[in-house]
């Protein structure tokens, strides 16, 4: 499954009005804070045993069994190129799996910490910075508790992870 085909088959969620708020799940990957659209998060789970898959891309750690179904486990660190994960002193800083779904595609993202669920106004987000090395699934940014949080485009992330997982780059 190529990147283009996946983006064609995964539908984006319904847009919201600029005046309305949208719920985001804040996670931390390394030293970076990211925001996921809460509507596309299926669940969070404890990072358990992960079975490696031969010939898989580097960011695909393997598959895990969640509620009876096998879900690909993707490392956001590898996809974002974050090096040197900053450890948090928080008691909740345990490896978590955040299961995101777009249509019938479902993957589990490995995050270092789940900071919580916040509601933000997308209209107040700042535009994403452009750059050649910036992944395409990174979208706008907003400030939260003094930290800059980058919004992830989940369908594009799933498409990217799926495309790379098949080695179709």
């Amino acid at each position, binding site marked *: 499954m190529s990147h283009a085909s996946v983006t064609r088959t995964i539908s984006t969620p319904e847009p919201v009005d600029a005046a309305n708020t949208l*719920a985001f*799940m804040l996670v931390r990957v390394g030293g970076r804070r990211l925001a996921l659209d*809460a*509507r596309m*998060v299926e*669940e*969070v*789970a*404890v990072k358990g045993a992960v079975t490696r898959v031969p010939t898989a891309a580097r960011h695909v750690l393997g598959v895990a069994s969640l509620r009876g179904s096998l879900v690909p486990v993707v490392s956001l660190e590898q996809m974002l190129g974050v090096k040197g994960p900053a450890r948090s002193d*928080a*008691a*909740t800083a*345990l490896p*978590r799996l955040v299961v995101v779904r777009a249509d019938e595609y479902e993957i589990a993202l490995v995050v270092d910490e*789940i900071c*919580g*669920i916040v509601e933000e106004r997308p209209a107040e987000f700042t535009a994403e910075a452009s750059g050649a090395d910036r992944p395409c699934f990174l979208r706008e940014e907003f400030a939260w508790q003094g930290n800059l949080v980058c919004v992830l485009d989940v369908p594009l992330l799933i498409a990217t992870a799926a495309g790379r997982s098949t080695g179709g780059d």
Partner: protein
Amino acid sequence: MSALVLRVRLILAFTLVIVFVTVCFAGYFLLHQERSASTALVTRASGISSVLARLVAPAVERDDGHEVSNSLAAVRDQADLRYVVVLKATGEVYQRQSVGSLTPGEELHDISHDERVVQTRGGLVHVLVPLYSHGNFLGTLVAGFSRQSIDDALRASHIAVLGGAMFILLIGVGVGWWVSGNIARPIRAVAKRLSRLSQDLVDSARSQESAGMQQAAGIEQTRRTMEVVLSSAQQIAENSSAVLGNAERTVTGNRDVALRIKDLNNHAEKVAEILAAIMQVADRTDLLALNAALEGTKAGESGRGFTLVAAEMRRLAESVMESVAGIRRLMNDMRGASQVAVQAGQEGIALSEETTRSARDIALVTQQQRRATEQVGQSMDDMAATVTDAMSRTRQTTANAAELAAAALKLGALVGSGPSTPSARPTEQVPIRVTATFNGSSR
């Protein structure tokens, strides 16, 4: 002055001997001379009288007065002859002849029938010779001889003897002076040397006595120090016994503490297990609350309250997890502290055991020290007795040396080598204070 006295004494001794010998010799000589002179005078007088009697006897028988007078005149020049009287048998003076004047009664007019009679009377020697002719007694010839010559000779002899005696006396005095000088000089030198040596001996004896007293004082001080050391050793032994008991109790206490800490560690391990279970439950609760909040968020406006409750539950779970994390940190700190306490307890046990061994060693060493101190005290007693005896002998030596020095000084003064007052003072009788018993009260 004393030397002069000595020499005078020596000279007098010599002189007395010489005078004695001289007097004896002179007395004997004069007496013998007087006897010899008297004997010679009597012999000569007897001879002259006998010869004269034979000459005049025939003339008297013939009654020839002239011949008798001539015969008497013939002996008129005989020395010492003072008178010659021829008496008839009736005692009448027949003829007389005298030399010089005679005092009345000086002539002897006695009739003698004996062969010859010599009488000494009035400083004259009278010789009476009977006159016989053919067996007929005719009368008596009496001749008087003077002792003047003998007296003069004796006087001259007295003078000569006195002069000789004076000469011999002077010779004796000179010889005595020379001999006394020759005798006194070596005696004086020997006296000086003897005085110096005796003074040195006195000084040495006093120095030795002073050193002995110092040694006795040192022995006394050492003995007292040994007593203090012995007392200290006794106290050390008692204290080491107390330390030994304390160390053994400390070992027991440290072992109890180690056991209690081990039990505490076991309890901490169980608490850690319980905390792990609580942590796991809180983690699950956090996940459940998070999923619940997620579902509430997906439910829209109707699930807002559910989302708030879920968020609150999640905060509670996070609070529990943070509390558990804090408890874990405290448990870790407590575990580290207990390990440190266990290690400190083990070190304390090791130190207590080392203290126990040290206390036993101290007790052993103290016992040896006490025995050694007692032996030193016994040696001090022996040494004190020896020093006491040595000091007594030294004092006796000092006294003898002082007496010798006094005698030497006296001898020196006698022969003129120094003052007559001895400078060596007699030995002071200082009581000996060496205690010859070691008070080993702790034996």
